[in-house]
């Protein structure tokens, strides 16, 4: 499978239906790369003509901005918007809620306005349109799955239903944690916490959240954010539940059932 970059498409005079914004986690983090590959596989199977920016993609600046470094954020935003506008990008899909939030909400006032969609929303649309066909009796049928709401998808952008609708299509048993949807508890990674040690406290946010997820008795913790994924995977390890509980992205669940 060949994943074209914008530069390559441009050179051959083509343009994609949608740009896949991979994000830093999806590009470099070994665990998140699997999510990226799963999602790219789905797009390819469904026959959506997409491209990536490849080496021209840069951090959106989200962790810089949230830690307080507006200068660095503005520099990243400037460069990214130059590239995106240079290619005349109209539509972007991303597997990272932080990239999603920045591209969708924070780039327009800086001159970068695009139709930005999170991969869970796109997956839901593709399922609804019948373009994604799931195997009868797929591997997750009857399994207990709990969905962990990403803050930047949920509270920040009001996306609660799309990921759940996708999970329902798997014929799995969806169990909710006590704190879910707008009451969902953060995984602990947002606001640039991912890149530093936690402040001292009684416990870690990701342990607290993972224990809540494990308490549902689910075999799968479904995530829709590479950072939540890392935090929950770590939490499962600390709870020594690696054999019983898997942390998987919605894209991985779908790719594994097509």
């Amino acid at each position, binding site marked *: 499978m060949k*994943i074209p970059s914008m530069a390559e498409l441009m050179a051959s005079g083509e343009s994609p239906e949608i740009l896949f914004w991979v994000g830093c986690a999806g590009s470099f983090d070994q665990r998140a790369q699997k999510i990226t590959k799963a999602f790219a596989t789905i797009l390819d199977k469904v026959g959506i003509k997409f491209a990536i920016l490849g080496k021209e993609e840069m951090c959106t600046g989200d962790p810089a901005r949230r830690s*307080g470094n507006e*200068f660095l954020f503005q520099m*990243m935003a400037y460069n990214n918007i130059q590239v995106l506008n240079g290619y005349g990008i109209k539509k972007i899909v991303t597997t990272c809620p932080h990239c999603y939030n920045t591209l969708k*909400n924070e780039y327009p006032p800086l001159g970068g306005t695009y139709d930005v969609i999170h991969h869970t929303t796109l997956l839901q649309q593709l399922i609804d349109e019948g373009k994604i066909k799931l195997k009868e009796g797929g591997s997750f049928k009857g399994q207990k799955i709990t969905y962990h709401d990403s803050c930047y998808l949920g*509270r920040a952008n009001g996306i609660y239903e799309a990921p759940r609708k996708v999970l329902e299509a798997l014929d799995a048993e969806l169990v909710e944690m006590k704190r879910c949807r707008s009451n969902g508890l953060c995984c602990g990674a947002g606001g640039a916490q991912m890149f*530093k040690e936690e402040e001292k406290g009684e416990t870690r*946010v990701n342990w607290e959240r993972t224990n809540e997820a494990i308490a549902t008795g689910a075999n799968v913790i479904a995530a829709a954010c590479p950072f939540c994924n890392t935090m929950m995977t770590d939490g499962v390890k600390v709870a020594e539940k690696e054999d019983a509980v898997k942390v998987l992205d919605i894209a991985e669940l779908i790719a594994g059932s097509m």
Partner: protein
Amino acid sequence: MQLLQQILFTVCLGSASWFFSKKVREIRRNILLGTDEDLTDRPAERWRNLLLLAFGQKKMFKNPLVALLHLFIYVGFVIINLEVLEIVLDGLLGTHRLFLEPLGAFYTFLINSFEVLAATVLIACVIFLSRRNVLKLKRFISNDLKGWPRTDANNILITEIVLMSLFLLMNATDRALQLNNAEHYHNTGDFMISGLFTGYLQSLPVNTLVMIERTAWWLHILGILAFLNYLPWSKHLHILLAFPNAWYARLTSTGEMKNMESVQNEVKYMMQPELAPADATPPSKFGAKDVMDLSWKSLLDAYSCTECGRCSAACPANTTGKLLSPRKIMMSTRDRLEEVGRNINANGTFVDDGKKLLNDYITVEELRACTTCNACVEECPVSISPLSIILELRRSLIMEDSNAPGEWNAMFSNIENNFAPWKFSPDERDKWAEEMS
């Protein structure tokens, strides 16, 4: 005697109103110390927020039972104020139950409605007091509320119980006097709630009853005037400010951070020097160090906070034992703002007191623990954003003081040099794609 009472009442009412309006002007001045932010766009949505969030108390209904009790107190308080109108007019004109004659039977119906409301307010306040002091709900006994804030909360509930009791006692004795055919006490018909006590009072001598009735009347209205002047010093100010705060709530996505146009331009001029105007001056300040550097909306937020603690109970940092408490962020902001206000009162203008909101009131450790998850913003029933304050203070820490943990500095330099928060070569960004082909 009657004239003396009228004069006394007029003096009380006048001075209570004067003190209250003075304090209101002071609070308005303090709020306007904040930086400009235009929050008047999309009026239709603002009216909707005002109706749903402030009048409708939509967010309170996440917990329906508590919301209902709170609604009793709120509706009771608002509607019983119609009765206060009569009391004020009676006090000024030297009349007694002025509205009885023109309203007739409807008057009795009105007073009965007020009595039912008064009883529900009373019951709700007793339940709320026990939630704080007997059941000791976690968010009510946290360190944030040590000392005055806890006393303040109890003061409010006890005052409301006392005021409602006085109102009912006043009606009960009034009715007893009517039944004993006392002069000036015109027949109103039976009252629903206070009527339960009238029977016991009827056996008392008329003089004693008049004493009780007049005392209850005076204490009730003086209590209300005192309570009015207590509001600006108390968390209870939310009963007034919840309304403007809902109207002025930011309508942008909660995930969107406020853009710093000054920095945006700096970067633009750096990248495209030809665009820089000849007289371009670099921004003088980044983020907020003190209350005056915050948006006026954040300052209105601080005065609107009733310290309920729903934000902190939902905060991932706070619930895992970190120092950060969004409620305390709001309380600290108000405390500092009040201090700045007193400074201005004393000196005519703000004289540097060597203190700042950052560090002296809110510590770096608190600010660092925030995950920007927006749980506090989502929870707040009166549209407060503790997150806005946290993020503005963080900006000052990083851009003014270069105060960042080592790991963040590493993250910054990675983004700057490798265009990713980790130390990977930008050439490897699409390695995953090569692996797939």
